[in-house]
């Protein structure tokens, strides 16, 4: 029945580590896709989109991986703004269709190269979390293929437990076939952006508490390489979509233009150690200096504001073959001391990190494994081979959990399994819901095995 090509391939996440080999199915038609969980072997299956999870969420060592990206189907209801898209549709593809029609995606992360299926599985968030929450809050229904071969239509009303177990469920409740979600209207494709440079962490945190609510989108980039008095110096950018009357005459001719370009590609091979404390410090210095101390109402394109790194194809290669990891946590608003303590420890450990991203989340949702929760979230990239990095992050995880916070599973590639129930106290509830649709334990991934998500 399943005749789509299968090939053994070594897979990794965006961080390029850890790696494992799996049999990858490439269903090419909706019919094949809907049968993609037929005849799965004992090592199970997981769906994979564009592989932008940093860690091992979309790989399944020795088992089956279903590549969702060959099946493209997008339907738009222009009046309601409801869009139905197949799981493998990327946000890049969606935006190229939606923006010229005056619509935007409900939530976008820092890259357009994520899929609709991945957006649900990781319950992704963006710069507007404080306003609209995460991706799944815009989702009206999901068609979910479960290991029995059935396809369930799951909505927050019809089966809230399964819907919210799927939101942030890391693909472990079934293969998402397609989903219907709400896309908000926009008048123009330009953003009116205010930039504020602050000299330390307290400065940026105060600015965010004071005025984030005035903006639809807000995020700060922190320099973790600076220490002492300038520890945590930041550039805060906040904005909203511009209205037609804010555009100049030339821009008004094509107010909904959307044509982002990939400017350069990272070289295929990079010498180990290109990113070292000196080169990263120099980069961060340049980046901080180039930002204006304060600027308001600058018009920026969607690409420049939301997805600056997409201009460099394959930028993950600059970390060399050893790869890197991203560590992202959230702690409650009142745990701002924990945030300061962690930033201090990372700065003094000389973690060779490019800019870290700081954001203040609004309230979380009903997903037991959904990551966002009200408070401060910090994300940073770190080369994987740094001596003692594992034990350092383990200590910081304990601080995060102690403050009532958690680590983002979609980014994770090294968390200790016993920390998961501490960070996600509703894990058992999630397991019970999951077991009902997958009693045979067919759905699994390297992430699930490593973190013992399915079985304690």
């Amino acid at each position, binding site marked *: 029945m399943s005749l789509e090509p299968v090939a*053994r391939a*070594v*897979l990794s996440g965006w*961080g390029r*580590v*850890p*790696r*494992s*080999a*799996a049999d990858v199915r490439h269903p090419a038609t909706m019919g094949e896709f809907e049968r993609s969980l037929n005849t799965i072997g004992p*090592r199970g299956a997981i769906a994979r989109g564009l592989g932008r999870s940093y*860690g*091992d969420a979309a790989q*399944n*060592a*020795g*088992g089956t991986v279903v590549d969702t990206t060959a099946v493209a189907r997008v339907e738009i209801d222009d009046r309601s703004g409801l869009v139905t898209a197949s799981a493998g549709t990327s946000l890049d593809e969606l935006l190229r269709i939606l923006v010229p029609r005056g619509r935007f995606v409900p939530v976008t992360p820092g890259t357009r190269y994520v899929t609709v299926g991945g957006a649900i599985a990781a319950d992704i968030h963006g710069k507007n979390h404080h306003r609209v929450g995460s991706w799944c809050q815009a989702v009206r229904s999901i068609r979910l293929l479960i290991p029995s071969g059935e396809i369930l239509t799951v909505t927050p009303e019809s089966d809230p437990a399964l819907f919210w177990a799927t939101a942030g469920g890391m693909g472990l409740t079934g293969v998402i076939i397609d989903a219907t979600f709400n896309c908000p209207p926009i008048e123009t494709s330009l953003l009116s952006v205010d930039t504020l440079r602050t000299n330390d962490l307290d400065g940026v945190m105060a600015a965010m508490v004071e005025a984030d609510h005035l903006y639809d989108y807000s995020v700060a980039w922190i320099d973790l390489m600076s220490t002492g008095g300038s520890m945590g110096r930041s550039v805060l950018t906040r904005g909203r979509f511009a209205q037609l009357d804010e555009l100049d005459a030339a821009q008004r001719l094509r107010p909904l233009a959307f044509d982002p370009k990939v400017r350069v590609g990272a070289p295929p091979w990079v010498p180990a150690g290109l990113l070292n404390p000196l080169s990263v410090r120099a980069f961060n210095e340049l980046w901080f200096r180039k930002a204006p101390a304060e600027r308001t109402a600058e018009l920026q394109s969607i690409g420049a504001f939301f997805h600056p790194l997409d201009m460099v194809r394959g930028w993950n290669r600059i970390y060399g*073959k*050893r*790869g890197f*990891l991203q560590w992202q946590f959230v702690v409650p608003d009142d745990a701002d001391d924990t945030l300061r303590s962690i930033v201090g420890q990372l700065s003094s450990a000389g973690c060779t990190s490019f800019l870290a991203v700081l954001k203040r989340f609004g309230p979380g949702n009903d997903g037991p494994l959904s990551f966002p929760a009200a408070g401060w979230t910090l994300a940073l990239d770190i080369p*994987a*081979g*740094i*001596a003692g*990095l*594992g*034990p350092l*992050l*383990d200590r910081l995880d304990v601080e995060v959990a102690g403050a009532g916070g958690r680590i983002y599973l979609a980014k994770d*590639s*090294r968390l*200790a*399994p016993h920390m998961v129930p501490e960070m996600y106290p509703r894990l058992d509830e999630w397991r019970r819901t999951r077991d009902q649709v997958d009693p045979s334990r067919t759905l699994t991934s*390297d992430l699930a*095995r*490593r973190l013992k998500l399915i079985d304690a």
Partner: protein
Amino acid sequence: MNDAVGSPQTALVLGGTSEIALAAMDLLVARRCERVVLACRDSGPTAVTAAQRLRSAGATQVDIVTFDASDLTTHRPAVAKAFELLGDVDLVLLAFGVLGSQAEFDADPIAAAAAVNVNYTASVSCGLEVANRFRHQGHGTLVVISSVAGERARADNYVYGSSKAGLDVFSQGLGDALVGDGARVMVVRPGFVHTRMTAGLKAAPFSTTPDEVGARIVRGLETGADIVWAPSVLRWVFLVMRHLPRLIWRRISAR
């Protein structure tokens, strides 16, 4: 699963009483490695002490399976038993080996062949057995304890040296063969290590300890190295030594 910073959650040690392997396991158990299987010749006091040591280092489960490197028929059952006990095996440490003495080998060529069988032949059998299991599970790291003795022949230990040279080349080749299978091989080349095996011998320059070699192994797992030297300076020492004129090498290597 091995994580992004090179920490395994389960491990099998072939030659489970090896001081170098146990030193590495101490460190790995302190990180993520909860469950370990020690494959040992018997479950006598040395093996029991080794298991106890890893339990006190934090391992939740340590099992001993019997395995005799010199008896090829024990290899497959021992490896199978370990995978049965552990499920996925993230790390296999191939740590058995015998040093012997050249004088003994000169007097008893059959003893020399037996030592080569342990150091080389048995490693080939175990390495291939483990590789098949890794292919099936789609991941895994095999760490092979080689030796700098395999880098260049020396009159006073060339039987041992040649067996390690064979092991070293086999392990590198196996690592290359596993590239498309999600698994990998890390070759460890220690210099003179102060252990039971070398007790009473005169230490060579740059001699080291099991703890130091263990730390180098863990560091190699962190960096994803293919080859680890212990101490690391030996990489450069042997870069030179390998190219010395034979006459000079013979003189400086004579002890």
